[in-house]
């Protein structure tokens, strides 16, 4: 198969999960790109040094070229020197950002793939419990927060600190006293900005919350448009929206006020430092403690020492957000995967299909058994029908066969061998499942039919399967035939059509064991007959478990199990069960009662 993506260094999720603290975990997420990242940091330092160099050189230029009147080739050389320094600064700053971006994009891409794979290999129990939206959020927006952290925030913090250190060192070179005086304000600015951004981020959250309120309001109004119109409640709705809208306006104003106070106030602080230091430096220059060139260098360097500190507060506040996202991501990674290949028994001649349940019990939660002490046996190729109300344990029982869940007590034998000895992957390749309303993927109908196939499948084979599943004619009615897309971008299939696509899918896989959810209540009678025939074809020569809703479809089953509250209350063939008093017979009798009631109903009309 042609690949449309490049490879990248592998990373074991366990090393990330095993990290003791957040920063170590982040570091491990970047493994394979550590070199890039360190190089990026180095380039950052070079860039900052070159920038400081430009100012120092400017001072030297004033002192030694301009004041000493060396206007010959030295002037031209110095001018070239400036261009050279800027070139170094620009190039290293580009490389630094580029390397950081590469690290961030590459490691988040790997993380995305890792999460995708991890999530699809988590156990059924996990998926049953977790909310799709939450999982999606973790795999998309939390990952994106991490990406921004690696590419912007971590680099940003490093940049500000590096620039500070290098500019400070440069000023130290000019004059120690000047350097020390110039950073008096720095701790103040830092503390103020951290406090401010912490407060700001709260106000921002409040603003976002109101945004969500507005969205909900709008969505309810739009989806309930018939109700709004039916009760002629437009004015009421407008007033309600107005209230929420105005609340958002108010919160926005508050946020705005905070911004409009912080920036000028911190500006003033910084400027006070600037003025103070500059006066000192100017006096020093007059007194000959430093040169004029030193003064000019200093004024340039000073700006880079003070202003960036204001943003440090924001970056630090953002860091805490990244750590929260990281925690949410590692929580998912920490959940153990389903060991798909665990188990060693793969029969040489393939699976035959005889199954026996030996005192099987099963519970999702401790002490709340869903299945209790289930024992029965069936031969290869036989049909077992499961009958019972919702929650009686039918679905739980069939979920045990492909080992979506494992038994809590007892054992299930397939061809005499405990299920737990078969690798899950192998086992699942032997079992076909057709659900009442099967899940189809938003790809073409052909891709859906060949979804379970590991080999190339010819068009003839696909069509043959579709014909046997009584769906071929329906597919041919679509403009694009088998290439028609399913879902939002294509056609919406009815429940019965989806079921027949799933039957075709299962026919191709040709499994030894079949699990059917036999409910045809959502289709008209003609389709019902077609589906029934398709199912008959599918069941030939396979051990079949039917979750049955109607008696007609199970009369010919080799074994009927009647469930009630997790236990088998009746079992046997139709002929035997019909002899016993019990649930089975009463269900059976309903059919005849319906027929006579209908006749009565019709007769009543005629009499009138």
């Amino acid at each position, binding site marked *: 198969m042609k690949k*449309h993506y490049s490879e990248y260094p592998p990373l074991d999720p366990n090393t990330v999960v095993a990290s003791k603290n957040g920063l170590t975990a982040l570091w491990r997420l970047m493994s394979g790109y550590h070199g890039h990242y360190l190089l990026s940091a180095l380039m950052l330092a070079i860039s900052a040094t070159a920038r400081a160099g430009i100012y120092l050189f400017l001072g030297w*230029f004033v002192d030694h070229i*301009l004041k000493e009147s060396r206007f010959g080739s030295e*002037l031209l050389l110095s*001018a*070239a020197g*400036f261009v050279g320094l800027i*070139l170094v600064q620009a*190039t290293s*700053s580009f490389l630094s*950002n580029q390397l950081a*971006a*590469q690290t*961030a994009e590459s490691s988040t*891409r790997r993380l*995305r*793939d890792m999460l*995708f*794979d991890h999530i*699809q290999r988590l156990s059924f129990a996990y*998926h049953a419990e977790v909310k*799709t939206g939450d*999982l*999606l959020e973790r795999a998309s927006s939390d990952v994106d927060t991490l990406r921004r952290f690696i590419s912007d925030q971590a680099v940003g913090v490093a940049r500000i600190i590096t620039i500070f250190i290098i500019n400070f060192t440069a000023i130290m070179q000019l004059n120690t006293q000047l350097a020390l005086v110039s950073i008096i304000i720095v701790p103040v600015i830092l503390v103020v900005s951290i406090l401010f951004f912490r407060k700001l981020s709260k106000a921002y959250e409040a603003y976002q919350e109101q*945004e969500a309120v507005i*969205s909900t309001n*709008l969505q309810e*109004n739009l989806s309930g448009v018939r*109700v*709004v*119109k039916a*009760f002629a*409640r437009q004015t009421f709705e*407008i007033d309600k929206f*107005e209230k929420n809208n105005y609340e*958002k*306006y108010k919160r926005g104003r508050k*946020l*705005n006020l905070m911004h409009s106070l912080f*920036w000028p106030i911190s*500006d003033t602080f910084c400027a006070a430092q600037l*003025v103070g230091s*500059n006066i000192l430096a*100017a006096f020093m220059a*007059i007194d000959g403690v430093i040169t*004029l060139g030193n003064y000019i260098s200093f004024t340039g360097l000073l700006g880079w020492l003070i202003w960036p500190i204001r943003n440090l507060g924001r970056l630090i506040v953002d860091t805490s957000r990244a750590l929260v996202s990281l925690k949410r991501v590692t929580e998912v990674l920490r959940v153990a995967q389903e060991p*798909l290949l665990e188990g060693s028994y793969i029969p040489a001649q393939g699976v035959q299909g005889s199954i026996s349940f030996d005192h099987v019990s099963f519970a999702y939660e401790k002490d709340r058994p869903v299945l209790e002490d289930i024992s029965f046996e069936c031969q290869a190729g036989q049909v077992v029908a499961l*009958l019972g109300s919702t929650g*009686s344990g039918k679905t739980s029982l069939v979920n045990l066969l492909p080992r979506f869940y494992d038994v809590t007590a007892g054992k299930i034998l397939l061809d005499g061998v405990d299920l737990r000895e078969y690798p899950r992957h192998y086992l*699942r390749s032997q079992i076909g499942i057709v659900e009442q309303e099967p*899940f189809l*993927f*938003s790809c073409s109908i052909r891709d859906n039919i060949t979804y379970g196939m*590991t080999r190339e499948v010819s068009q003839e084979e696909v069509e043959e399967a579709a014909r046997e599943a009584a769906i071929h004619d329906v597919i041919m009615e679509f403009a694009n035939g088998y290439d028609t897309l399913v879902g939002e971008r294509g056609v919406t299939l009815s429940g019965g059509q989806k079921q027949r696509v799933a039957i075709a899918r299962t026919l191709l896989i040709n499994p030894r064991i079949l699990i059917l959810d036999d409910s045809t209540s*959502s289709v008209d*009678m003609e389709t019902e007959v077609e589906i029934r025939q398709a199912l008959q074809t599918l069941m030939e020569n396979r051990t079949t478990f039917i979750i049955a809703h109607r008696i007609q479809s199970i009369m010919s089953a080799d074994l009927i199990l009647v469930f009630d509250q997790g236990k088998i209350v009746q079992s046997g063939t139709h002929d035997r069960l019909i002899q016993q008093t019990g649930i089975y017979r009463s269900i059976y009798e*309903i059919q005849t009662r*319906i027929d006579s009631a*209908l006749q009565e109903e019709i007769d009543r*009309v005629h009499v009138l």
Partner: protein
Amino acid sequence: MSTYYDENELDDNVPIKSNVLKRLFSTLRPHWKALLGGVIAIVVVSLLDAYFTILSKRIIDEGIILQNKAAILRLFTIYGAIVLVQAVSVFFFVYLVGLQGEGVRYDLRKNLFNHLQDLSLSYFSKTPLGWIMSRVTSDTEKMAELLTWGVIDTAYAAVSIVVSAIFMLTINWQLAIIVLLSLPVMIYAALKFRLRIYHHYRLSRKANSRMTASLNENITGVRVVKALRREDRNLNDFKVLSSAMYRSSYRAAYLSALFQPTIQMISAVSLGLILWRGGIKVELGAITIGGLQAFVSYIMMILWPIQDLARVYADMQNAVASSERVFSLIDTQPGINNRPDAASVPSLAGDIAFEDVSFRYEEDEPVIRNLSFQIPYGQSVALVGPTGGGKTTIVNLLCRFYEPTEGVIRIAGKDYMDLTLQTIQSRIGVVLQTPHLFSGSIRENIRYGKLDATDQEIEDAAKLAGAHNFITHFEHGYDQNVGEGGNLLSVGQKQLISIARAILSNPDIFVMDEATSSVDTLTEALIQNGMEKLMTGRTSFIIAHRLSTIKNADKILVIRDGQIAESGNHNELMLLKGHYYRLYTQQFRHELESKLDPYSDAPAASETI
């Protein structure tokens, strides 16, 4: 919240249309004072910014070089004073512009929402909800962004560039020309970069939405993925998507990284030239050292406004595209309006007649064809027939959610087009198949039927509907929160509440779309009971699925292909042995089966009768 967008909303090279831009700026009108104040403040800020450089020059030339400490103190005092003035200006411009931005957002949202209330049902049935949502949320955001920070950044950039240019020209015009010549090159490069970056950024957003969709599908379909052992192949498929995301996202980051250094390099060339030519000028005494330093500062500073300008231009493309969509929504005509001389009447009690009514959404595709029938006041009508036959359309016509393309609908003898919409819709009570509740309490939801109802009236209505019992079993009773869209309640409970809501509104005409989904037997009986209460003393139209409802109706209309296939009462129709007979016997079986079946977990038949 997930945002919805069409993929072609992310296309490049949207032309900036001047008429759209003009209209966009006209939304600023109510806020012109704040904007003007903000612009004045930002002009002051940028003037002072440029002036700082002049001050620094004077400090060097008049203070340090002339060894004059008094001058230094004086100049720095001015410097400090200007800092304070500038701080005040910064406060005003951030505050005023922010205020104006919130104001514009508020106005746009309000206008859109209010306009949406007037649009007809057919608009909502053809426009995806997500599309409308994006217009109100994200598009208004982009418009406001351009109208505030876009305007301000442009003002700042323009003033900075112009003022710097003037100062440079006054210091030394030959050197200034060198800088000014490099400006267009920088602006052109900045613009090219911005547009390329946006292009890749859009691609990455597209890739991201595909990636999320794929992940979503894999989670919701995990059972099939596991059963069919698709893990490895799905991972490979996903890798294709995630690497597409990687490529465009990295490309955008790469260009961003290259952007500033490139502009800087262009400026470096002019800086080198200035220092070389400037050095010679210093020798000739044509420029002071301070003046030369000022030039260096200007060159380093001018990078920022240029990058701002490029960004605003690129944003403008987005904002104009957003505006176009928003304006197209605002320009959508309501479709259903009151006629100029429409009358309001206090009551709609009277016979209802459809006279040769036809309806079509599109030319040549009639949904309803030449429909005529008459219902005496107080009677009940059951509409039955296959899905898509036109039952819902008939009800929508009656409520005047749609208007007939041909023919007349008369209520109490009057053509209902001569009545106001308000009259008709406030006198019709509707209970929908999938009941819609609003977030809030049960009480608020029932009160929706009559806004000035007392608590007692609400309780009475709930009692009549048979909802009182289950409501009082909630911890907070009538104040129980129903959740978003009412999803904390069961379908049956929602239906009972919507019946109570309809009872409270005391309509002359009652319309109900019976639910096909199964509810438990007790709730079912309660609903039947509530419906009967509602049906007494008023004309009712029921899209019916339940045998008892159908049999009890005064008149049954079998609707197929937009026409009345059969009509009459139960007995008459049974004797015909036609469509109704078949539908009825089929439904009879289904209903009895689910009633008698001890395992009645299968949903009741949805084949509609």
